[in-house]
């Protein structure tokens, strides 16, 4: 069971995402603001993180930056969740190392699809990297 960390300062969104993901077969943990992300990630060790951009204390981009700076957490894929959906936000997210982002309101099934794609693509990438290493060792 893949573990997902949902970070949002809206408890309703946290509940919605938890239920949606649990229904899709994931284990979910929650964090309520950006400043909790690093600690929650270190303790929970999620396979991927859904990170809201607009949060009260520390916004999603700062939290993302923290995660990507820390070697222990930087390999965990992050999907940003945003109500803005502005191209510049997308750019910011990608430059900071987010894998994907989900616009609010999302379509039926979109969250599950993106999360699944993110996890599988990361896994595939890791496999490729591993294969590359094996090939190199073998070669």
């Amino acid at each position: 069971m893949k573990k997902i960390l949902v970070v949002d300062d809206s408890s309703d969104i946290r509940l919605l995402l938890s239920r949606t993901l649990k229904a899709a077969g994931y284990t979910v943990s929650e964090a309520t603001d950006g400043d909790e992300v690093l600690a929650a990630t270190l303790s929970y060790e999620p396979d991927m993180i859904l990170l809201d951009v607009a949060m009260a204390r520390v916004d999603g981009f700062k939290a993302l930056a923290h995660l990507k700076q820390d070697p222990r957490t930087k390999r965990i894929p992050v999907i940003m969740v945003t109500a803005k959906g502005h191209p510049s936000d997308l750019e910011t997210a990608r430059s900071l190392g987010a894998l994907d982002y989900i616009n609010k309101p999302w379509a039926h099934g979109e969250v599950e699809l993106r999360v699944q794609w993110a996890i599988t693509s990361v896994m595939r990438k890791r496999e490729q990297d591993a294969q590359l290493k094996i090939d190199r060792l073998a070669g």
Partner: protein
Amino acid sequence: MPAAQICVAAKSSCSVTAIQVANNLRSSTQIDNKYAGLYSSLRSFAKTDGADRLRMIAYAPAVVTIVIVLAIEFGVGGIRNSVGSWLPLAEVAAVLGSVLAGTLWFGWGQSRIATQAMSVLNMAEDERRIVSAIGIGANWDLDIKRIFARFSNDLTTLIDYDRLTITTARRDGRMQLEFVSGMNAPEDEIGGVVLSVIGHPDGLVNPRDYGLHSQMTVPISAIDGTITIRSRDHDAYGPHHVDIMRQVVAQISPGISNAINYQESQHRVMERTALAEIGRAATHETDLDSILLVVSGALSNLMKFDHMGTFLTDPNETSDSKQETAKVVCWSTPNLLGINVGDSVTLETTQSDTGVLSGLGRDPLGLNSNSATAGTEDRHWMQVPLGEQSKLLGMLIVSAPADAVLSEDEADLLQRVANQIAPAIQNARLTADLTRTLEERRVVAAIGRAASSETQTRRIFAVVAEELESIIPFDRFAATIAIPETRDLEVSYVQGSHCEGREEGSIIGTPIEDDIRELRARRSILRSYESLNDIADQGIAKAGLYSWIQIVLGEVTDPIGYLSFRSKKTNAYSDVHVELLEGIARQISPVLKNAQMFELERGLRDQLDTQNRELQEANTAKSRFLSTVSHELKTPLTIVSGFIDLLADDADQFTAEHLEALNIMRKNSTRLGLLINDVLDISRMDAGKLRIEPTVFQVNDLVHELDKSFEPLLETKNQTLEIGVSEDIVWIEADRNRVAQLVTNLISNAHKYSNENSTIRLNVAVEDNSLSVVIEDEGIGISEDDQKQLFTAFFRAENRVAREAGGTGLGLVIARSIAELHGGDLWLNSIENQGTTVAFKIPGISSEPVVDANDEDEQSMLAQRSRLYPDTDWEDIGKSA
């Protein structure tokens, strides 16, 4: 030597012979009067002690003796007989004795004459020597006064006198005292006029009062004068003295003539020098005062005048009559002869042929009928014309004291001086004219240039004032601007004197009726007040501004304003100024009009700018507000639609009614989501932030995708989507999501406004490297009126179907904006109740991109995400459930 011959003759012969010789010599040598003295003294001597008488006296005893002897011998016998034989002897002895005695007597007398003649001759010789010495001295001297002095000194050796005077005749006929030696009388004044008393040419009316009893006067033609000597002795002078005087005068006359010639030539040289100096000054000096200074300096040694001036005609005034007016421009002494600089003078050019006027009086220019203001003393004056009589420039006037004489020679000289300086005055005038014309032109041009670069009326007036200062004298310059509508005037600019109530910015009424009339008639007012009381405006009267020019700016009937120049001097302005100012007014009027318009326009533009800015700010605020609100709406919408989705996942647990309600909730939350997205797009459009992110994608793929996504929606109204697309794969570089949004918008509109069972046609083609998409429906169409407003945000056609169909009224606006952002275009064609055709074109047809194998993830991710966008799900909930 004739004198020696006379002496010899006198010694050897009798006095008659000497006189004869002297007489002969006198006539034969033809030396006028040279020996006149000697001759006359010999003659007078001959008269008193005549030789005939001497001869008679000397031989008288011999004659008597002879008579007696003859009587004895032939007449009287008795006597012979009584005497006897010794009688003949006695007779002989008596005759011989008497003859001897006569001879001796005669000889003595003869020697006495000779001695006397010698002494006379010696004296004559002395006189002659002195006279000739005086002549030689006079001949060698070139100074008349010195000649006179030496002459008077030398004369004392010939003639005794107690007073010697020399007078000369002046040109007016009166005598002038030139020289006095010996006794001086109080009335003597060298160079002064001697009182004309007959017989007393030296001016002494009563010589006896001074103890002078004798007088002799001889003429001296070389100087057209007389020499008078006087002595205290009675009858001191006789003809001999007159002779001597004449001789002396004859001796010194050539010397005097020489000296006079020399003096005259000196005078001519001085004249020439003076004229040259004046000529030089006239050539080099441009200022009349400086020229006249040189003139008076140069002439001071040549003429006796002590004051000089000129009055000149006004070159700008043309006169038809022979009487021209001139103005005194220079005058050495104020109020002398009642003349002052600036006086107006009537030129009398017809009085004399030469144009020279002269006289003696107090008021030569006829300036002062009132004698109190005329000159205080009678003076000589002389005027000569400057320039040709036909084109008189003015007159040169000099004045001398009453006892001095301004002769014809001086008039001649003065005329020559006038002729020398007249061209200079003419030149100075021409130069001044030229300079003024050039300056005026420069000023007009400068004003035109400066004014045209200025857009503020006040600055234009400042330029006018600054530039005109050099050519138009003014104590106050004011420019007024007519206030539109009210026709009042606002004082826009002031330079110079302060006038109460007419400060900058103050409002003054329109000009008074009289002024308006004058302005209408002449476009200007040119006035000089005699008295300040005549000035209506108190402020101007208080400032003491007598002269006034006012010029209309723009049309007289509808003036832009006025330029007003005022001066404290009376008659400060003339038509020349008016003409110049009118030129300037013509030049600046259009500029002022422009400036006024510009100022008005600037006001309006500022107002518009403010309004625009406010509108923009309002619009920005609106966009920001819409954006913020939309974002804030998204989170709750996400929660609502998310939970609806979660509920729908458990559809099997609900009744049909629950599901219907859920379906409606889901449909409307979807619509709300679309609405929010549209509003966000519009606000981005307003803020200019709607951007496209072009990628190269396959058009066929997108069309297929859209076809599939519209299937469920079209099914709700049983509509058919006919797609016409080429078999060839078409690639384009564009924003895939935005193009999809654009087509989706148009198809959903066609769906909304078309009836059930209708057909919607989607045609995709490539034209000129552009993607051409046409969407055609058989719907209700759009009325022509509504078509005009179709592309206005939030506009929706006012009809039932439209209202029922829902929608934001933003779709078409966004659609066209997307097409335009791609560099394409969108247009619409509709017939009410028949259908609508919407078409758009987007350039950027591309070839198939080369996909980087390593970037496969990226590509697939992008593709995946693109497919999920727009966040629209047309799927019917009931169906999916």
